[in-house]
């Protein structure tokens, strides 16, 4: 299923598909946020923002506005 990082649930993993290169900070690419790499949502901050992610082994926090720009494909839906 295609979606953006922003709509991942805690503990969900996904593969990065694409993003708008003009809007996304270069730093994020350098931290490993590149098409084909894996991302996992680890934590959501109180009040829902920012998000704490594991992107390709880098542990980082980004804001929702950025997370909305990154299209991903879910790897497996966590069993509920």
């Amino acid at each position, binding site marked *: 299923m295609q979606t953006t990082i922003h709509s991942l649930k805690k503990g969900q993993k996904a593969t990065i598909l694409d993003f708008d290169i*003009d809007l996304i900070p*270069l730093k994020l690419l350098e931290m490993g946020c590149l098409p084909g790499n894996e991302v996992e949502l680890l934590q959501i901050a109180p009040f829902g923002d*920012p998000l704490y992610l594991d992107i390709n082994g880098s542990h980082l*926090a980004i804001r929702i506005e950025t997370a909305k720009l990154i299209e991903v494909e879910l790897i497996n839906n966590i069993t509920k």
Partner: protein
Amino acid sequence: MSLKNINVALIGNPNVGKTSVFNQLTGLNQQVGNYPGITVEKKMGFCKLPNNVKANILDLPGTYSLNASSIDESVVIELLLNKNDRLYPDVALVVTDVENLKRNLLLYTQIKDLEIPTILVINMADRMEHKGITLDIPYLEQHLKTKIALISSRKGHGIEELKNLIVSYKTISAEPCLNASIIDPEYFNSLRHAFPNQLLYKLWLVITQDVNFLNLERNEIRSSFTKSHSDLKRLQQKETIKRYQFINDVLKEGLKIDSSVAKDFRSKLDRVLTHKVWGYLIFFMILFVIFQSIFEWSKIPMDFIDSTFATLSTLAGEHLPSGMLTNLISQGIIPGIGGILIFIPQIAFLFLFISILEESGYMSRVVFLMDKIMRRFGLSGKSVVPLISGTACAIPAIMATRNIENWKERLITILVTPFTTCSARLPVYAIIIGLVIPDTYVFGILNLQGLTLMLLYVIGFGMAILAAYILNLILKVKGKTFFVVEMPNYKLPMFKNVAINVIEKTKAFVFGAGKIILAISIILWFLASYGPGKEFKDAEKIVFENAKENPLSSTEFDNAVASQKLENSYIGLMGKSIEPVISPLGYDWKIGIAIISSFAAREVFVGTLATIYSVGGTDNENTIKNKMAAEINPVTGEKIFNFASGISLLMFYAFAMQCASTLAITKKETNSWKWPAGQLVFMSTLAYLVALIAFQVLK
């Protein structure tokens, strides 16, 4: 054989233990000066290497890549692009964390492309077994075209081997790892033809970012090789992908991870520390402990230093031959030095806590926890670190805003940071709280004086937030917002790093601020010991005339003469001249003197009062605090330092911008006089008004 010092630059991502490596190499041979007056963004140290070679070790700010997105990162690039810089490295050490090797190598491949001899330092090797990691060092050395030092800076393993590698830096390859130009061969070829003598990768860096480049006319490159922002970014993305491909290929053979060994201590701790209830509760508990300890635990050493200097002053007065020089020593210099040293315990405690929080990785969680809240006020989660560091000193705190990528958020943080209660306010707070707040306990355990102090910190922080909110509404600054924070692994803080940090910062306080305080103490003593007119010269005669009707005892007479002299000394006249302005705030001319002299730096306030009361001593009290407590207003007959005037003074010092060094650093970081001037006017006006209201309401 020439004994030229080798220049070594330490480069690496944040949180890889770069500072530990720096501390292991240099120990206490460091030069860090970021307290009043001096601002140094590059930490320097010296290291003795085998064969009698000395190395200058330069610790550069942590950076993820050579594409600068913050001022901190551009410091690194500017140095590495400028071969003429005095500090340009003969050899670069790229420090990496074995657990994040893939990402860390991105920076490494960029440094290699600058054709600087580079040693790859793989840190935290002691955790490899624990994490199930194995490395094929010969394979990696061959493909990364370098020498690798496998070290553990925590345990001190591998440091000697690293020193040996540095000494033989000439044998280390300066060859690039990969050929970045294939991302757009046509473009790079034309670049190469236009600037045949320049390194291609350097040109590329100059084109893609905003750093000062000294050797080249960047406008020239820019105009003929300009591309749209979007095209450039696409190329940068291509470059990044290409670098990762290279790294992945190398690591596929050179690195093996048995992930079944890895454990999830981090996620468990994260769940608690970033919890929506526990997270905040723990954070405020930590802050509370810090503030209680600053006041409670520091008391014993502070009282000891206080009484020691009082005794020294008395001894000097009694035992040295009487005369001007003795007076200068016993009334000017000794109380002046005492006024500086007494704050060492509190400053040391503050830096102790701050460096433990930074070292452990906890600060990043605070950033994560606070971002949403701070954003409402135009700040960033990253502003929390400057605001907390501001409790030590606004100068390093303002410098710590450099990792905030968004200019508006950064500017607001810079402007409001001076409201947080810095350690220079502590002396003033401590002494006034001691005078006007009773030393009692509420609820059995909470010290009322400690609580008051904490309240002052809260007021400072609250004012910072409020000012930020207003600035956020007023300021029209354009800039893209983005926020990327690395959440490092939790680490037990290293004793050596914390200790060095505390010692260095305290030393910088004592010698940096101390020089100013001592100089002002001496000047004040002179101004207080001499006066222009008859009233000063003939003080004895005047007192004698006035006292004809009811004769004074000899002590009373001496005291009356001393007061008469002080009142008519140069400084006394200065204080008197501003009395009309400050008397609505509840201050007399003696406090006026202290306010004038503490304009350059707040901590001078107490030293000034110490000097003034020593000169005009009207009782037998030894310490400054007792002297202040005994001061009586001759007109009303009431104590000068009562509840109303005390609170008014606390408010004045909470808000007034009395720190020349902070103004200087604001000027430097914002590159304009507009912002420091605004800070000065706004904060001083606010301080005056709040103090005025406080006194008028409470008196």
